[in-house]
Every structure is written in C-alpha cells, then in structure tokens.
C-alpha cells in the first residue's frame, strides 16, 4: 500500500484525536515499518489493518465509519495536490464513472506499482449511476467517503446506497442517485 495512504491517515488521526492517539495505535500494532512512513514509500496493507483495528477499538468507532471519514479527508488531499485532474470534470457522475479509465490511469503514472481497486460501471444515466467496487482490501467506505466529497465538490448531493455483493465486502455495489 502506498505510503501516502498511511501518512495522510496518521495526519488525520493526529488532527482528530491528537498525537497521543497516533502514538498509541502505532505502539499497539506490530509494524514492520515501526510506524515510519513516507508518502513515496510502499508498505504492507496489514499495517493499515492493524492501525485501523486499534483506532476503532480505542475510539469505539466502526472501521467503516473511520474509512468513510478518511475517504472524505483524502478527497481534500486530491483537491490540493491534483487540481488539474478535478478541473477536467464538470459533473460528479461523470467523474465517478471514469475512475477506472482515467483517474486510475493517472494514478499509475505517479505510482506504477499501486494496487488499485476495480470499478465497473453497471448502469449510468444523467442522474443515476450504478458502479461495482472490487478489491481484496474491502475499503468500500473509503470509496464512499471519496464519492460524498465528489458530489460536494460539484455543489450537489446524492443518495448513495451501498449493497454488499459479497459479505466480506470485497465486492460492493454503489447505487448513486443524484439529487
């Protein structure tokens, strides 16, 4: 997993719960990296799972809830770091539809070894989008957070219903209705 996901995650934890919480989840976890992360490095996904598990236990917030908030936060990272990418879209549905064919392509230019989820458009109209998420990481709520912020970015809102196709969350359907 790319280092930026860790650094941004820890920044957000520090922001919301303080440096003590950061120290706690790192110390509590058994990390190969010893909690030393740099945005350009690559680290094991299991480290992220441990960090999330301990944060969830300590804050009594579900992992999904945490990932949702993190996803929302991560969108702002994209906004500041890659304004050009967002500027090329006029509409949130359009942008979400092109995750696979455009955004991930751009991501791979910067991080050639990034392991990215797969997004498949099932149905799409002007106001509605059905898109399937597939990833062994089951970080669908991270995606949901990004989607929420995407609508916000374009000054609109949407009802997004998440249906698990597989119970373990490795395959999830997003049914999006734009308001």
């Amino acid at each position, binding site marked *: 997993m790319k280092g930026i996901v860790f650094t941004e995650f820890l920044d957000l934890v520090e922001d919301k719960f303080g440096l003590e919480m950061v*120290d706690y989840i790192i*110390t509590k976890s058994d990390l190969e990296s010893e909690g*030393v992360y*740099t945005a*350009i490095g690559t680290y094991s996904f299991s480290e992220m799972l441990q960090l999330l598990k301990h944060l969830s236990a300590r804050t009594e917030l579900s992992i999904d809830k945490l990932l949702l908030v993190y996803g929302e936060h991560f969108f702002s990272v994209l906004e500041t770091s890659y304004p050009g990418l967002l500027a090329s879209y006029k509409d949130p549905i359009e942008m979400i539809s092109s995750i696979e064919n455009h955004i991930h392509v751009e991501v791979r230019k910067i991080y050639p070894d990034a392991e990215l989820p797969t997004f498949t458009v099932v149905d799409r109209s002007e106001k509605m989008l059905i898109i399937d998420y597939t990833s062994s990481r089951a970080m669908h709520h991270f995606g949901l957070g990004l989607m929420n912020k995407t609508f916000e970015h374009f000054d609109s809102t949407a009802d997004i219903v998440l249906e698990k196709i597989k119970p373990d969350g490795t395959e999830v359907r997003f049914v999006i209705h734009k308001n």
Partner: protein
Amino acid sequence: MNNEIDILKRALAREKSARKSAERILEEKSRDLYRISQKLETLLAEKSAQLQGVFENIIDAYVIIGIDGDILKFNDAAKRLFEYNIDEEPINVVQLIFPEDHEYAMNSFLDLKKYGYFKNYEARVLTKSGEVKWVHINASIVYDVGRVPIAAQGIVRDITEIKNLEVQKEKLLKKLEGSNDLLQEYAHIVSHDLKSPLRSIDALVHWIKEDNQGQLDETTIQNFKLIETALEKMELLITDLLDYASIGAKDTLKEEVNLNDLMRDLQSILFIPDHIKVIMPKKMPTVIGDPIKLQQLFQNLIGNAIKFSDKTKGEINIDVIELEGYYQFSIKDNGIGIDQKFHNKIFEIFHSLNKSKSSTGIGLSIVKKIVDMHGGKIWLNSELDFGTTFYFTIEK
C-alpha cells in the same frame, strides 16, 4: 508530562526516520532515472547516428525547412543541387522557386499544411548561379510530441535530364509527325509529277501510230507496244510506292470491319480466272482496323496467289482461327512456291522475286506494313512447286 515528552520524542524519531527513508527512496529513484536516461541517451545517439548516416548518404537531396520557409538543413546532395551553403548564407525556400512555378509551389505548400504531406511535386527551381533545374519532391510535415508542426522535410530529386529528354522527345515526335505529313504531301506531288510525263508519252505514241497508220513496219509497231508496256509498269510502280508511303499516315482509321463484307467486295474487284477456285470455309470475324488498308492486305495476298498460280487447277484457301487476343488468318495456294532462302527477304521493299509486267516488289512490303499497323505478325510456309501459305495475325 513525561509520557507526553516520550510521545513527542517517538513522533520526532519517526519523522526523522521517515525523512531519511524518503531521502533514500528518492536517491534510488534518481539513480534509476539516471540509468534510464543513460540508456535513452545511448539509444538516441545510436538513432541519431543512423539518421545522420541516412541524411548524409542519401543520393537525393534532403531538405528541412522551418514553418516560415527558412531552410534549416541541407544534406550534401542538396548543397550540390542548390549550390548554397546554408551555414553561411541563410535562405528561404521561396528564393529557390522558379518564378513561373510560384503558384504551383504555393498550392503544394497549402496541401502540405492541410494534409501533412505532398507527393510527386514536379517543378523548376533556381540554383544560386541562376541555373534552372527540374526537381521531383516528396515532402512531409515534422511534428513535435504534441502534434504541433515544427518543420517540413523533403526529398528532392534532380529530374532535369529526364525532363529535358521528355521535352526533346516531344519535339522530335512533333517534328516526325510534321515530316510524315510532309512526306505524304511529297509522295502525292511526286507521284503526280512522275505520272504526267508517262501520260504524255502514251498520248504521243498513240498519235504517232494514229497519224502514221499503215506506214509503220512490224518492228516499229512491236517497239511501240514495248514502250506502252514499260509505261504501264512504271505507272504501277508509282501507284504502289504511293500506297506504301500512305500506310501509317495520320488519317488511318480504326473502326469495326466485317471481313465477310470485305471479302465479298474483293471477289468483285479481283479478276479470278476460271481455273482457280477460292475456298473460304469459315465465316470471317469482324476486326478493328482501317477498312481500306485491310482490303488492300487481303487483295495483295489473294492477288499474289492468283498471279503465281501455275497449276491447271488452282486452289486458294482462306482460313481463320481465333486465338487468345488475336485472330490468325491464312491464305494458302498451290502455286509456284517460294524458295526457303527468300522467305526473309520477300517482305522487304523492291524485293520482287519475279520480274514480271505486273509485279513491282512493293506488294508484300505493303502487306507487312499493314499487318504491323494492326499489331500483328506475318510469316509464311512454302515449298517450291507445291505452293505457299501466308499467315498473319490481327489484334482483336
């Protein structure tokens, strides 16, 4: 408090390590980049060397011009062709265009801009010394990575000599056509001028005989007869010569000729003695050609067959077979035959085998010329005393 300091210390230590790890990663990346760029440079150098080789060794002139028309690069051939050393004297492509071809050149440049290339441009250029040369150019636009046109490149071939030859050829053809026409005219005038005295002699001989009727001895009357025969032979010679000269003249026709009709006409023109039978078992085809000349062709060959018949029962067979792309005709007689050693010569003009009153030695030359004109070939099979078969082909 202590706890807080510990947390901060740990955080700081992590930040330091992270920085160092980032630096290490970056160093590795930059080493990677360096290696890659080294590789690319080597590759580029190789490709450049190859291109440079092509550029220098290409026989044709190779020219690169900027978008504004300034010449950016000349290879050695281009330097020799245009005589400019562009390193010392900058020139624009417009200076090279021959004034009369300016419009054509400008239109071609528009094409180049519009389509990205032009092909088979042929026009004149001016060299530094003011010499005019014909060139053939294929050109294309050179784009940068973003598909923005940055230059145009062209391969320029000097075709001056070819063009000159073409012009010369055209001139020669024109001249030849002119002299052919003139020759035709001459042939007619000469034939008139040659025939006039023959007529006069004939009239005078006639009058002498008439005016001295009963007073001339047998020898004189015989001599007058010989004069008349000589006159007829001379007249025939002139007529045949004129015919020969007329074949291949500009007014040759190309139309559908039904050879059955032609044969019917011929039978009424030719005098066929009673002891000679003309047999034509097959229906004749319709061919494309000049009707008068085709008639002359058959007339001469059948006429010859009649003329050289020496059997009590003469037979002339006219046949045709259809082959791929042409018809093959044959005219077979059972006459005197032609010795093998003359087979090659008989189509040559004035090569008469039989010095007779009715033969000028031009007939078969005319036949050959007509067959040539219709894209065919002529040959013969013959055995002395047994007869001759003439074969000829006519294109479909």
